[in-house]
Protein backbone atom coordinates (compact mmCIF):
# COMPACT_ATOMS: atom_id res chain seq x y z
CA UNK A 1 0.00 0.00 0.00
CA UNK A 2 1.23 3.48 -0.82
CA UNK A 3 2.04 5.43 2.27
CA UNK A 4 1.36 9.17 2.32
CA UNK A 5 3.22 11.37 4.76
CA UNK A 6 1.02 13.32 7.15
CA UNK A 7 3.13 15.99 8.80
CA UNK A 8 2.46 18.18 11.86
CA UNK A 9 3.96 21.66 11.64
CA UNK A 10 5.20 23.25 14.86
CA UNK A 11 5.94 26.96 15.10
CA UNK A 12 8.58 28.22 17.52
CA UNK A 13 8.11 31.72 18.87
CA UNK A 14 9.96 33.16 21.86
CA UNK A 15 11.05 29.71 22.95
CA UNK A 16 7.56 28.25 23.05
CA UNK A 17 5.22 26.64 20.62
CA UNK A 18 2.52 28.79 18.99
CA UNK A 19 -0.17 28.48 16.37
CA UNK A 20 -1.20 31.27 14.03
CA UNK A 21 -4.20 32.28 11.99
CA UNK A 22 -3.21 33.67 8.58
CA UNK A 23 0.38 33.97 9.86
CA UNK A 24 -0.84 36.30 12.64
CA UNK A 25 -2.62 36.11 16.01
CA UNK A 26 -0.16 33.74 17.62
CA UNK A 27 -1.52 31.64 20.40
CA UNK A 28 0.72 29.79 22.84
CA UNK A 29 0.09 26.06 22.70
CA UNK A 30 2.86 24.60 24.85
CA UNK A 31 6.40 23.40 25.16
CA UNK A 32 8.09 22.22 21.96
CA UNK A 33 9.99 19.31 23.52
CA UNK A 34 6.88 18.00 25.15
CA UNK A 35 4.96 18.24 21.88
CA UNK A 36 7.69 16.37 20.01
CA UNK A 37 7.64 13.64 22.67
CA UNK A 38 3.89 13.22 22.29
CA UNK A 39 4.09 13.11 18.49
CA UNK A 40 6.87 10.55 18.80
CA UNK A 41 4.68 8.25 20.80
CA UNK A 42 1.99 8.58 18.17
CA UNK A 43 4.50 7.22 15.64
CA UNK A 44 3.93 10.03 13.20
CA UNK A 45 5.57 10.16 9.77
CA UNK A 46 7.62 13.31 9.98
CA UNK A 47 7.64 16.64 11.74
CA UNK A 48 8.29 20.19 10.58
CA UNK A 49 9.61 22.78 13.02
CA UNK A 50 9.70 26.42 11.94
CA UNK A 51 11.27 29.17 14.02
CA UNK A 52 9.23 32.19 12.99
CA UNK A 53 11.42 34.69 14.85
CA UNK A 54 14.84 33.66 13.57
CA UNK A 55 14.59 35.26 10.13
CA UNK A 56 12.80 38.36 11.28
CA UNK A 57 15.23 38.96 14.14
CA UNK A 58 18.06 38.40 11.67
CA UNK A 59 19.68 35.78 13.83
CA UNK A 60 20.60 32.25 12.88
CA UNK A 61 18.84 29.12 14.10
CA UNK A 62 18.81 28.58 17.89
CA UNK A 63 21.15 25.60 17.85
CA UNK A 64 20.72 24.78 21.55
CA UNK A 65 16.97 24.54 21.30
CA UNK A 66 17.18 22.57 18.05
CA UNK A 67 19.61 20.14 19.62
CA UNK A 68 17.13 19.49 22.45
CA UNK A 69 14.26 18.98 20.03
CA UNK A 70 16.30 16.73 17.73
CA UNK A 71 17.36 14.62 20.69
CA UNK A 72 13.71 13.71 21.24
CA UNK A 73 12.71 13.20 17.61
CA UNK A 74 13.00 9.57 16.55
CA UNK A 75 11.22 10.52 13.37
CA UNK A 76 12.35 12.64 10.43
CA UNK A 77 12.67 16.24 11.52
CA UNK A 78 12.72 19.20 9.15
CA UNK A 79 13.79 22.60 10.39
CA UNK A 80 13.29 26.04 8.91
CA UNK A 81 13.95 29.59 10.11
CA UNK A 82 16.89 31.95 9.78
CA UNK A 83 19.16 29.61 7.82
CA UNK A 84 21.49 31.70 5.71
CA UNK A 85 24.85 29.92 5.50
CA UNK A 86 26.13 26.53 4.50
CA UNK A 87 27.84 26.22 7.88
CA UNK A 88 24.45 26.48 9.56
CA UNK A 89 23.16 23.73 7.30
CA UNK A 90 26.14 21.57 8.26
CA UNK A 91 25.59 22.23 11.97
CA UNK A 92 21.87 21.44 11.74
CA UNK A 93 22.58 18.05 10.21
CA UNK A 94 25.16 17.33 12.82
CA UNK A 95 22.52 18.02 15.47
CA UNK A 96 20.17 15.48 13.96
CA UNK A 97 18.02 17.50 11.56
CA UNK A 98 16.96 15.44 8.55
CA UNK A 99 15.97 18.28 6.25
CA UNK A 100 16.49 22.00 6.08
CA UNK A 101 13.73 24.33 4.95
CA UNK A 102 14.73 27.52 3.19
CA UNK A 103 12.40 30.43 2.61
CA UNK A 104 13.87 33.93 2.47
CA UNK A 105 17.35 32.79 1.47
CA UNK A 106 15.93 30.56 -1.25
CA UNK A 107 14.67 33.75 -2.83
CA UNK A 108 17.56 36.05 -1.93
CA UNK A 109 20.39 33.58 -2.51
CA UNK A 110 19.28 30.52 -4.50
CA UNK A 111 22.89 29.33 -4.72
CA UNK A 112 22.51 28.29 -1.06
CA UNK A 113 20.01 25.65 -2.25
CA UNK A 114 22.51 24.34 -4.76
CA UNK A 115 25.30 24.34 -2.23
CA UNK A 116 23.17 22.66 0.44
CA UNK A 117 21.98 20.01 -2.02
CA UNK A 118 25.57 19.23 -2.90
CA UNK A 119 26.42 18.84 0.77
CA UNK A 120 23.46 16.86 2.08
CA UNK A 121 21.65 15.67 -1.04
CA UNK A 122 18.68 17.33 -2.68
CA UNK A 123 16.27 15.04 -0.82
CA UNK A 124 17.16 16.96 2.34
CA UNK A 125 16.69 20.47 0.99
CA UNK A 126 13.16 21.84 1.10
CA UNK A 127 12.01 25.22 -0.12
CA UNK A 128 8.92 26.62 1.56
CA UNK A 129 6.70 28.80 -0.56
CA UNK A 130 4.20 30.97 1.29
CA UNK A 131 1.40 32.14 -0.96
CA UNK A 132 -1.15 34.90 -0.54
CA UNK A 133 -3.71 36.25 -2.97
CA UNK A 134 -3.23 39.89 -3.91
CA UNK A 135 -5.96 42.51 -4.39
CA UNK A 136 -6.75 41.13 -7.82
CA UNK A 137 -7.01 37.55 -6.62
CA UNK A 138 -3.66 36.52 -8.08
CA UNK A 139 -1.46 34.15 -6.08
CA UNK A 140 1.85 35.72 -5.11
CA UNK A 141 4.87 34.47 -3.19
CA UNK A 142 5.69 36.03 0.19
CA UNK A 143 8.81 35.70 2.32
CA UNK A 144 9.86 36.62 5.87
CA UNK A 145 6.96 34.89 7.55
CA UNK A 146 4.47 36.27 5.05
CA UNK A 147 5.35 39.92 5.58
CA UNK A 148 7.12 40.71 2.33
CA UNK A 149 5.90 40.04 -1.19
CA UNK A 150 8.49 39.27 -3.84
CA UNK A 151 6.07 39.77 -6.73
CA UNK A 152 6.54 36.28 -8.10
CA UNK A 153 4.03 33.77 -9.28
CA UNK A 154 4.15 30.52 -7.20
CA UNK A 155 4.54 28.20 -10.20
CA UNK A 156 7.38 30.17 -11.74
CA UNK A 157 9.09 30.40 -8.34
CA UNK A 158 8.63 26.69 -7.56
CA UNK A 159 10.15 25.67 -10.91
CA UNK A 160 13.12 27.95 -10.30
CA UNK A 161 13.63 26.35 -6.89
CA UNK A 162 13.49 22.87 -8.41
CA UNK A 163 16.07 24.00 -10.95
CA UNK A 164 18.32 25.31 -8.16
CA UNK A 165 18.34 21.87 -6.57
CA UNK A 166 15.48 21.76 -4.07
CA UNK A 167 14.29 18.22 -3.38
CA UNK A 168 10.87 19.16 -2.16
CA UNK A 169 8.47 22.10 -2.10
CA UNK A 170 6.54 22.97 1.04
CA UNK A 171 3.55 24.98 -0.19
CA UNK A 172 1.73 26.99 2.44
CA UNK A 173 -1.35 29.15 1.96
CA UNK A 174 -1.22 32.25 4.15
CA UNK A 175 -4.89 33.01 3.49
CA UNK A 176 -5.94 29.59 4.73
CA UNK A 177 -3.51 29.17 7.64
CA UNK A 178 -5.45 28.33 10.81
CA UNK A 179 -8.84 28.84 9.14
CA UNK A 180 -9.93 25.20 8.67
CA UNK A 181 -11.16 26.11 5.15
CA UNK A 182 -9.42 23.23 3.45
CA UNK A 183 -6.35 23.26 1.22
CA UNK A 184 -5.95 25.45 -1.87
CA UNK A 185 -6.62 22.57 -4.26
CA UNK A 186 -6.28 24.44 -7.59
CA UNK A 187 -2.85 25.74 -6.57
CA UNK A 188 -1.72 22.29 -5.41
CA UNK A 189 -2.84 20.87 -8.71
CA UNK A 190 -1.11 23.55 -10.76
CA UNK A 191 2.23 23.16 -9.00
CA UNK A 192 2.33 19.40 -8.55
CA UNK A 193 1.57 18.81 -12.23
CA UNK A 194 4.51 20.97 -13.28
CA UNK A 195 7.03 19.80 -10.67
CA UNK A 196 9.16 16.67 -10.82
CA UNK A 197 9.91 16.86 -7.09
CA UNK A 198 7.41 16.12 -4.29
CA UNK A 199 5.06 18.80 -3.02
CA UNK A 200 3.89 19.04 0.59
CA UNK A 201 0.56 20.84 0.92
CA UNK A 202 -0.10 23.01 3.96
CA UNK A 203 -2.64 25.57 5.10
CA UNK A 204 -6.31 25.14 5.91
CA UNK A 205 -6.72 21.47 6.84
CA UNK A 206 -9.63 20.75 9.13
CA UNK A 207 -10.07 17.01 8.81
CA UNK A 208 -8.61 13.82 7.44
CA UNK A 209 -10.88 14.24 4.41
CA UNK A 210 -8.95 17.37 3.49
CA UNK A 211 -5.78 15.26 3.37
CA UNK A 212 -7.45 12.97 0.87
CA UNK A 213 -8.49 15.96 -1.27
CA UNK A 214 -4.96 17.36 -1.33
CA UNK A 215 -3.51 13.98 -2.34
CA UNK A 216 -6.19 13.71 -5.02
CA UNK A 217 -5.11 17.13 -6.30
CA UNK A 218 -1.52 15.91 -6.66
CA UNK A 219 0.25 16.60 -3.35
CA UNK A 220 2.83 13.99 -2.36
CA UNK A 221 2.40 14.71 1.35
CA UNK A 222 0.13 16.78 3.58
CA UNK A 223 0.93 19.03 6.50
CA UNK A 224 -1.18 20.82 9.08
CA UNK A 225 -0.82 22.85 12.25
CA UNK A 226 -4.06 23.72 14.00
CA UNK A 227 -5.68 20.39 13.30
CA UNK A 228 -3.00 18.56 15.27
CA UNK A 229 -2.76 20.90 18.25
CA UNK A 230 -6.34 22.07 18.78
CA UNK A 231 -9.48 20.22 19.56
CA UNK A 232 -12.50 21.77 18.01
CA UNK A 233 -15.06 23.35 18.40
CA UNK A 234 -13.51 25.41 21.20
CA UNK A 235 -9.88 25.12 20.11
CA UNK A 236 -8.70 23.68 23.40
CA UNK A 237 -5.06 22.66 23.15
CA UNK A 238 -4.87 18.93 22.58
CA UNK A 239 -2.26 17.14 20.52
CA UNK A 240 -3.74 14.52 18.24
CA UNK A 241 -2.89 12.51 15.14
CA UNK A 242 -5.12 10.32 12.99
CA UNK A 243 -5.05 6.57 13.52
CA UNK A 244 -3.30 4.39 10.98
CA UNK A 245 -6.59 2.74 10.20
CA UNK A 246 -8.22 6.08 9.31
CA UNK A 247 -5.20 7.09 7.29
CA UNK A 248 -5.33 3.86 5.32
CA UNK A 249 -9.02 4.22 4.60
CA UNK A 250 -9.19 7.94 3.85
CA UNK A 251 -5.76 9.03 2.69
CA UNK A 252 -3.59 6.19 1.41
CA UNK A 253 -6.40 4.84 -0.72
CA UNK A 254 -6.98 8.06 -2.66
CA UNK A 255 -5.80 7.74 -6.27
CA UNK A 256 -3.28 10.42 -7.12
CA UNK A 257 -3.81 12.75 -10.05
CA UNK A 258 -1.25 12.00 -12.71
Amino acid at each position, binding site marked *: MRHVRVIPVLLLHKGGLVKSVKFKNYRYVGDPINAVKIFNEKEIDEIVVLDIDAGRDQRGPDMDQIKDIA*GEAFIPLAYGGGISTIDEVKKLFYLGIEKVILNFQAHANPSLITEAARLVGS*QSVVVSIDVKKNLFGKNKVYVKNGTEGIGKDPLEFALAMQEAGAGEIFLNSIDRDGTYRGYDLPLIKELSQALR*IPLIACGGASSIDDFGSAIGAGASAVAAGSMFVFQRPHNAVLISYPSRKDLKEKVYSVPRKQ
Partner: protein
Amino acid sequence: MLIIVDYGVGNLSSIRNMLKKGGVPAVISGRAEDIEKAAKILLPGMGAFDNCMEKLDASGLRPIIEKKAMEEKVPVLGICVGLQMFMEGSEEGKLKGLGWIKGQTMRLRPERMQTEEKIPNMGWLEVTGKKGSRILEGLEEPRFYFAHSYHVQPEEPSDELVSAFYGYEFTVGIERDNLTGVQFHPEKSHRFGMQLLKNFGEKY
Protein backbone atom coordinates in the same frame (compact mmCIF):
# COMPACT_ATOMS: atom_id res chain seq x y z
CA MET B 1 31.89 -1.51 21.62
CA LEU B 2 29.85 -0.42 18.65
CA ILE B 3 31.56 2.48 16.88
CA ILE B 4 29.63 4.90 14.69
CA VAL B 5 32.27 6.05 12.24
CA ASP B 6 32.66 9.81 12.08
CA TYR B 7 34.34 10.60 8.79
CA GLY B 8 32.65 13.98 8.51
CA VAL B 9 29.40 12.85 6.95
CA GLY B 10 25.94 12.03 8.19
CA ASN B 11 23.41 12.35 10.91
CA LEU B 12 25.47 10.78 13.66
CA SER B 13 23.69 12.14 16.72
CA SER B 14 20.37 10.74 15.51
CA ILE B 15 21.88 7.29 15.11
CA ARG B 16 23.46 7.36 18.54
CA ASN B 17 20.23 8.69 20.11
CA MET B 18 18.21 5.86 18.62
CA LEU B 19 20.74 3.22 19.69
CA LYS B 20 20.63 4.69 23.19
CA LYS B 21 16.83 4.56 23.20
CA GLY B 22 17.14 0.87 22.32
CA GLY B 23 19.63 0.34 25.13
CA VAL B 24 22.65 -0.23 22.89
CA PRO B 25 25.86 1.50 23.97
CA ALA B 26 27.65 3.17 21.07
CA VAL B 27 30.37 5.73 20.55
CA ILE B 28 30.79 8.21 17.72
CA SER B 29 34.43 8.29 16.74
CA GLY B 30 36.72 9.30 13.93
CA ARG B 31 39.86 7.96 15.62
CA ALA B 32 41.65 5.01 14.06
CA GLU B 33 42.57 3.58 17.49
CA ASP B 34 38.87 3.39 18.50
CA ILE B 35 37.89 1.72 15.25
CA GLU B 36 40.81 -0.68 15.65
CA LYS B 37 39.19 -1.92 18.88
CA ALA B 38 35.59 -1.85 17.62
CA ALA B 39 33.50 -4.99 18.06
CA LYS B 40 31.01 -3.66 15.52
CA ILE B 41 31.01 -0.82 13.06
CA LEU B 42 28.20 1.38 11.90
CA LEU B 43 28.98 3.19 8.66
CA PRO B 44 26.66 6.15 8.03
CA GLY B 45 26.44 8.19 4.84
CA MET B 46 24.47 11.07 3.46
CA GLY B 47 24.33 13.30 0.43
CA ALA B 48 26.33 12.79 -2.73
CA PHE B 49 28.16 9.49 -3.23
CA ASP B 50 31.47 11.00 -4.37
CA ASN B 51 31.45 13.39 -1.43
CA CYS B 52 31.13 10.44 0.96
CA MET B 53 33.93 8.48 -0.73
CA GLU B 54 36.18 11.57 -0.77
CA LYS B 55 35.52 12.24 2.89
CA LEU B 56 36.17 8.63 3.81
CA ASP B 57 39.48 8.68 1.93
CA ALA B 58 40.45 12.05 3.40
CA SER B 59 39.69 10.82 6.94
CA GLY B 60 42.47 8.27 6.68
CA LEU B 61 40.13 5.69 8.21
CA ARG B 62 39.51 3.67 5.09
CA PRO B 63 42.37 1.15 5.51
CA ILE B 64 41.40 0.32 9.09
CA ILE B 65 37.72 0.01 8.21
CA GLU B 66 38.56 -2.27 5.29
CA LYS B 67 40.75 -4.40 7.52
CA LYS B 68 38.04 -4.70 10.19
CA ALA B 69 35.34 -5.51 7.66
CA MET B 70 37.19 -7.79 5.26
CA GLU B 71 39.89 -9.46 7.36
CA GLU B 72 38.58 -9.47 10.93
CA LYS B 73 35.00 -9.77 9.67
CA VAL B 74 33.47 -7.68 12.42
CA PRO B 75 29.78 -6.93 11.85
CA VAL B 76 29.30 -3.77 9.80
CA LEU B 77 26.00 -1.98 9.31
CA GLY B 78 25.81 0.58 6.50
CA ILE B 79 23.03 3.12 6.44
CA CYS B 80 21.86 4.97 3.29
CA VAL B 81 24.97 6.07 1.38
CA GLY B 82 26.88 3.94 3.89
CA LEU B 83 25.25 0.93 2.22
CA GLN B 84 25.81 2.36 -1.26
CA MET B 85 29.53 2.60 -0.53
CA PHE B 86 29.64 -1.18 -0.01
CA MET B 87 29.05 -1.55 -3.75
CA GLU B 88 31.51 -1.31 -6.63
CA GLY B 89 30.30 2.07 -7.81
CA SER B 90 27.38 4.42 -8.22
CA GLU B 91 25.66 6.11 -11.13
CA GLU B 92 25.68 9.23 -9.00
CA GLY B 93 29.42 9.64 -9.04
CA LYS B 94 32.71 8.90 -10.74
CA LEU B 95 34.58 7.41 -7.80
CA LYS B 96 34.73 3.70 -7.09
CA GLY B 97 32.94 2.28 -4.10
CA LEU B 98 34.50 0.02 -1.49
CA GLY B 99 33.63 -2.97 -3.67
CA TRP B 100 32.73 -5.26 -0.75
CA ILE B 101 29.54 -6.36 -2.48
CA LYS B 102 29.32 -7.08 -6.19
CA GLY B 103 26.95 -4.75 -7.95
CA GLN B 104 26.20 -1.09 -8.48
CA THR B 105 24.15 1.74 -7.09
CA MET B 106 21.71 3.06 -9.65
CA ARG B 107 19.32 5.96 -9.92
CA LEU B 108 15.62 5.23 -9.42
CA ARG B 109 14.39 4.42 -12.92
CA PRO B 110 11.20 6.24 -13.98
CA GLU B 111 10.95 3.99 -17.06
CA ARG B 112 10.60 0.91 -14.85
CA MET B 113 7.81 2.40 -12.79
CA GLN B 114 4.37 0.87 -13.00
CA THR B 115 2.94 3.85 -11.12
CA GLU B 116 4.19 7.38 -11.64
CA GLU B 117 6.25 8.45 -8.64
CA LYS B 118 8.33 11.48 -7.78
CA ILE B 119 12.09 11.32 -7.39
CA PRO B 120 13.59 11.61 -4.78
CA ASN B 121 11.56 9.09 -2.83
CA MET B 122 10.78 10.80 0.43
CA GLY B 123 8.71 8.91 2.89
CA TRP B 124 7.74 5.64 4.45
CA LEU B 125 7.66 2.29 2.71
CA GLU B 126 6.77 -1.13 3.96
CA VAL B 127 9.62 -3.55 3.33
CA THR B 128 9.56 -7.22 2.41
CA GLY B 129 12.10 -9.67 3.77
CA LYS B 130 13.88 -11.67 1.03
CA LYS B 131 15.66 -13.98 3.43
CA GLY B 132 15.74 -14.67 7.14
CA SER B 133 18.11 -12.58 9.22
CA ARG B 134 18.76 -11.67 12.85
CA ILE B 135 18.46 -8.03 11.84
CA LEU B 136 14.77 -8.52 11.00
CA GLU B 137 13.78 -10.31 14.20
CA GLY B 138 10.77 -8.92 16.05
CA LEU B 139 9.68 -6.76 13.10
CA GLU B 140 6.03 -7.20 12.17
CA GLU B 141 4.82 -5.36 9.07
CA PRO B 142 7.79 -3.04 9.34
CA ARG B 143 7.85 0.32 7.64
CA PHE B 144 10.85 2.58 7.38
CA TYR B 145 11.67 6.13 6.42
CA PHE B 146 13.41 6.67 3.08
CA ALA B 147 15.01 9.76 1.58
CA HIS B 148 16.87 8.79 -1.57
CA SER B 149 17.18 8.96 -5.35
CA TYR B 150 19.46 5.93 -5.71
CA HIS B 151 19.29 2.29 -4.72
CA VAL B 152 21.70 -0.62 -4.75
CA GLN B 153 21.49 -3.50 -7.16
CA PRO B 154 23.53 -6.49 -5.96
CA GLU B 155 24.72 -8.92 -8.61
CA GLU B 156 24.17 -11.92 -6.36
CA PRO B 157 20.43 -12.36 -5.72
CA SER B 158 21.28 -14.09 -2.43
CA ASP B 159 22.79 -10.85 -1.10
CA GLU B 160 19.38 -9.22 -1.11
CA LEU B 161 17.95 -8.88 2.39
CA VAL B 162 14.87 -6.70 1.97
CA SER B 163 13.05 -5.04 -0.88
CA ALA B 164 10.44 -2.31 -1.19
CA PHE B 165 8.09 -1.06 -3.86
CA TYR B 166 8.13 2.53 -5.09
CA GLY B 167 6.93 2.47 -8.67
CA TYR B 168 8.80 -0.83 -8.97
CA GLU B 169 10.40 -3.30 -6.61
CA PHE B 170 14.04 -2.79 -5.72
CA THR B 171 16.59 -3.82 -3.13
CA VAL B 172 16.59 -1.71 0.03
CA GLY B 173 18.83 -3.87 2.16
CA ILE B 174 21.59 -6.39 1.69
CA GLU B 175 23.33 -8.91 3.87
CA ARG B 176 26.39 -10.99 3.09
CA ASP B 177 28.51 -12.59 5.80
CA ASN B 178 29.36 -9.84 8.30
CA LEU B 179 28.09 -7.03 6.07
CA THR B 180 24.58 -5.63 6.49
CA GLY B 181 23.26 -2.48 4.89
CA VAL B 182 19.97 -0.65 4.59
CA GLN B 183 18.90 2.12 2.25
CA PHE B 184 16.35 3.53 4.71
CA HIS B 185 16.93 5.40 7.95
CA PRO B 186 16.36 3.22 11.02
CA GLU B 187 17.40 6.15 13.23
CA LYS B 188 14.32 8.02 11.99
CA SER B 189 11.88 5.12 11.83
CA HIS B 190 10.55 5.12 15.41
CA ARG B 191 9.79 1.69 16.85
CA PHE B 192 10.76 -0.26 13.73
CA GLY B 193 14.09 1.47 13.42
CA MET B 194 14.77 1.05 17.11
CA GLN B 195 14.14 -2.68 16.86
CA LEU B 196 16.44 -3.05 13.87
CA LEU B 197 19.29 -1.15 15.53
CA LYS B 198 18.71 -3.06 18.76
CA ASN B 199 19.01 -6.29 16.78
CA PHE B 200 22.31 -5.15 15.33
CA GLY B 201 23.50 -4.18 18.80
CA GLU B 202 22.41 -7.36 20.55
CA LYS B 203 22.25 -10.19 18.03
CA TYR B 204 25.46 -9.64 16.09
